[in-house]
């Protein structure tokens, strides 16, 4: 699967990582909903770590849609409240 980190670039990850990423994302949503900034920070850095460890950066020449778009690395907690929400994925 292809993951984009906003403002950074695209990475190719093994499909098995989807579940792990999804789980971290769900927990991040929960942390944000509880106003738990420390918890969110921890989960967010785990998500970035997963991409850094398992992902290979896509070539600049490649033009591909991403399966997942993550927010910018330096996302603030206030911004996270807008991104990590229960029904954040708005259908087209």
């Amino acid at each position: 699967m292809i993951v984009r980190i906003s403002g950074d670039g695209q990475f190719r990850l093994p499909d098995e990582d989807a579940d792990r990423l999804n789980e971290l994302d769900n927990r991040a949503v929960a942390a944000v909903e509880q106003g738990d900034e420390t918890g969110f920070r921890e989960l967010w850095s785990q998500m970035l770590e997963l991409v850094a460890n398992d992902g290979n950066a896509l070539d600049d020449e490649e033009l591909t849609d991403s399966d997942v778009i993550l927010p910018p690395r330096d996302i603030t907690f206030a911004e996270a409240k807008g991104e990590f929400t229960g029904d954040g994925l708005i259908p087209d």
Partner: protein
Amino acid sequence: MPGLGGRMSTVIKAKISRMLDRAEDPGETLDYGYQKQVELLQNVKKGIADVVTSKKRLQMQSSKLEQNIVKLDTQARQALSQGREDLARLALERKTLAQTELQSLDSQVKELEGQQEALTANEQKLRQKIEQFRTKKEVIKAQYSAAEAQVRISEAANGVGEQMADLGLAIQRAEDKTETMRARASAVEELEKAGTFEDLSQLGGGQDDIDRQLSELTSGAQVDDELSKMKAELGSGGGDAPALEQGEEKA
């Protein structure tokens, strides 16, 4: 991938993809998008320039403050050599106040400098990304005309649409950050302008509001220290009556 990321960017991405899909000439849409990005980046650059201007003004105020500190020190010495310990004390009190002010000003300048560096690095990164986008856009345009307008190059168009959306968001974010910094920088400037240290250099204006009294309390020990040091330096300065009379005549 239900529930996972994409959110804001997904919506914009979808919009751009639809726009590209519907456009009679996707090349034009891409050109327009590129043009927009370049314009937005100009705003970021302008914002950074404003932050730099604020920083420079604060630096100027900082050096003015340094001069005042030297001046107050000299005045304290003069007052003491003329036996006016009361005036010397006042001058030293103001010097202490000015030193505190200088410290906070310098740390503000330092912080602005750090922020300015971060904003500039960000701006350069965005500039590179926009340049990359320009290259990709040309590739897409070439492919499109080669396909004689019939074949959808939707995968590539989606890819470039996503990149365009992402770049747009990144630039937007940089602009927001720069705007915040600019606002903060000018707020600090305003504060410093309205601050007390303009009258710090004038001796004898004696205003004793609570702030002053409080800072006198905290700076009292330091003032005492400096005063006795100064006295020691000047030899047995002060105390004799003629010097005191002279001082009063001058005042």
